[in-house]
């Protein structure tokens, strides 16, 4: 009897623990249940095709000669990686990515400061800056294309007679970058604006009292505090710019050496009808994007979006 008594509290906690764990298990099951449909869709549409793309990239698979389809190992990768077309497109894509993201960072920061500090017309400027963000890329690209087309366009008419900027490689890439900057600066602006509004006003006032100039307050108080927001904005925009497709498709159709890696991936499937090579390019683009993400997250310490959610 005496041996039972001391065990009573332990038993109580065990019952309690069992009740708790029942509740925990119910919560887990409910959590999984809620997530299941989204997970199934994402797995079926994103992960299965990526696996299938890897499989296809190891095949000789040409729609013109379907009977010759067979396993060829890594030879497609050899073909793509030793071809000038891939590396040319890769360099074009890198140039577009680096230049447009760099310009957008400066321009976006300027716009964000303007939106944050302007004493008038705040709503009007915010509304108008959302228009490029929301507009269908193809619609905007047509606007730029017609503007630069000699004979119809007002911008082309500002240039010396006889120039057709969209048919020259360097000028066309410049115009593609311009169209990209116009379309995506608002995204950068609004992410930076959100970062800017987290900078405490008191700190800026204190720095002012201490005699810091406007530029010093910007570089030594604001920028360090905004670093996480800047890195996230850069990560998003870099990944997005590397995938550029719509603007090039409409503006030049990738002609005259203006094609990005996405454009040649598309062309290898729909123009050259080569599913094997097209899939190889798909996989290589995927790897490139993954490398960029890893550089940002591991190299620069960008907080991967969603990690804060995970932590709670």
């Amino acid at each position: 009897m005496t041996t039972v008594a001391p065990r009573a509290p332990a038993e109580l906690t065990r019952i309690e623990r069992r009740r708790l764990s029942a509740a925990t298990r119910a919560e887990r099951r409910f959590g999984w249940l809620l997530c299941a449909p989204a997970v199934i869709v994402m797995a079926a549409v994103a992960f299965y095709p990526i696996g299938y793309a890897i499989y296809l990239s190891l095949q000789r698979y040409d729609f013109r000669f379907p009977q010759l389809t067979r396993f060829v190992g890594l030879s497609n990768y050899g073909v793509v990686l030793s071809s000038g077309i891939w590396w040319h497109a890769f360099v074009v894509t890198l140039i577009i990515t680096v230049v447009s993201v760099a310009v957008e960072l400066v321009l976006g920061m300027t716009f964000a400061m303007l939106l944050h500090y302007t004493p008038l017309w705040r709503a009007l400027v915010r509304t108008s800056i959302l228009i490029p963000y929301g507009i269908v890329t193809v619609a905007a690209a047509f606007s730029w294309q017609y503007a630069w087309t000699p004979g119809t366009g007002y911008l082309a008419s500002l240039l010396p007679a006889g120039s057709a900027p969209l048919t020259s490689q360097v000028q066309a890439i410049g115009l593609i970058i311009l169209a990209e900057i116009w379309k995506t600066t608002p995204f950068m602006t609004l992410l930076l604006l959100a970062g800017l509004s987290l900078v405490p006003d008191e700190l800026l006032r204190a720095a002012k009292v201490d005699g810091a100039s406007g530029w010093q307050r910007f570089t030594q108080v604001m920028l360090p505090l905004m670093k996480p927001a800047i890195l996230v904005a850069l990560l998003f925009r870099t990944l997005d710019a590397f995938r550029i497709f719509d603007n090039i498709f409409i503006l030049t159709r990738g002609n005259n050496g203006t094609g990005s890696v996405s454009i040649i991936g598309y062309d290898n499937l729909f123009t050259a009808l080569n599913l094997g090579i097209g899939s190889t390019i798909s996989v290589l683009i995927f790897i490139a994007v993954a490398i960029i993400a890893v550089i940002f997250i591991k190299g620069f310490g960008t907080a991967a979006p969603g990690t804060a959610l995970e932590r709670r």
Partner: protein
Amino acid sequence: MTAVAAPAARTAARARQARPALPTGRKTRWGAANLVVVAWTLFPIWWLVALAFKDPTTLGDGSFWPNKWSWTSFSTIFHGSAFVQPLINSIVIGVISTVISVVLATMAAYAVARLKFPGKGVLIGVSLMIAMFPAISLVNPMFNIERAIGLFNTWPGLIIPYLAFSLPLAIYTLSAFFREIPWDLEKAAKVDGASQRQIFMTVIAPLALPGIATTAILVFMFCWNDFIFAISLTSTNAARTAPAAMGFFTGVSQFTFPIGNVAAAAVIITIPIVLFVLFFQRRIIAGMTSGAVKG
């Protein structure tokens, strides 16, 4: 006035303590700077409007302002099905994708923001990866899969990839909104004996409605904007969306559409975007920045 009414607390606070009377010089400088930004964002849009309203005979004049206004381009594209059918496809595919995506994402985001369960980190990591997927990487395999199972050139054939790509965006945005709903409400409901399911349906979901609406707008804009899936997974106007049809208006198909018609089509597909921006400006900004910066 509008600036003071802004709910964004810090901005509003700053606006309230702002100078009672702005000196004219500063006012002019700010006004000029604002005008530059507004002009920069709107001039390509105006150029589309001008082209769309130009009389077809004056399309080549290169003038920034239509010299002769006409509705011809609009009436042309609304006669026949070359643009009307893709426009219908765009609307239907966009609406169906948005509804399904938001329902699935609401469930998942609630779980992510409120429940403890193993595998949550994996779910977040996985959807982050998908958000970074280059669309072209999926186009090649999807093209082959959809031809094999008969989804190629159908509405579901586009709805399914749109779901997969909009779900990460929707889950982030919604879980950020869910986290702002006070825990106490949920605890109170629990004390009153409500089940997990009842709490979700009667307490959380109604409070989350503004967030759900915001997410729906962002998802619809994403589907409305897509071009690469729309040109790759369709072959005729049976499923081709408006941007894809416009891409093939020019050159790629055997007959070339006049510039005025493409411009008119571009104006039509921009109208919903402008309406969203005008009416839901604040929501769109809150939604697109919540997942990225606060999360």
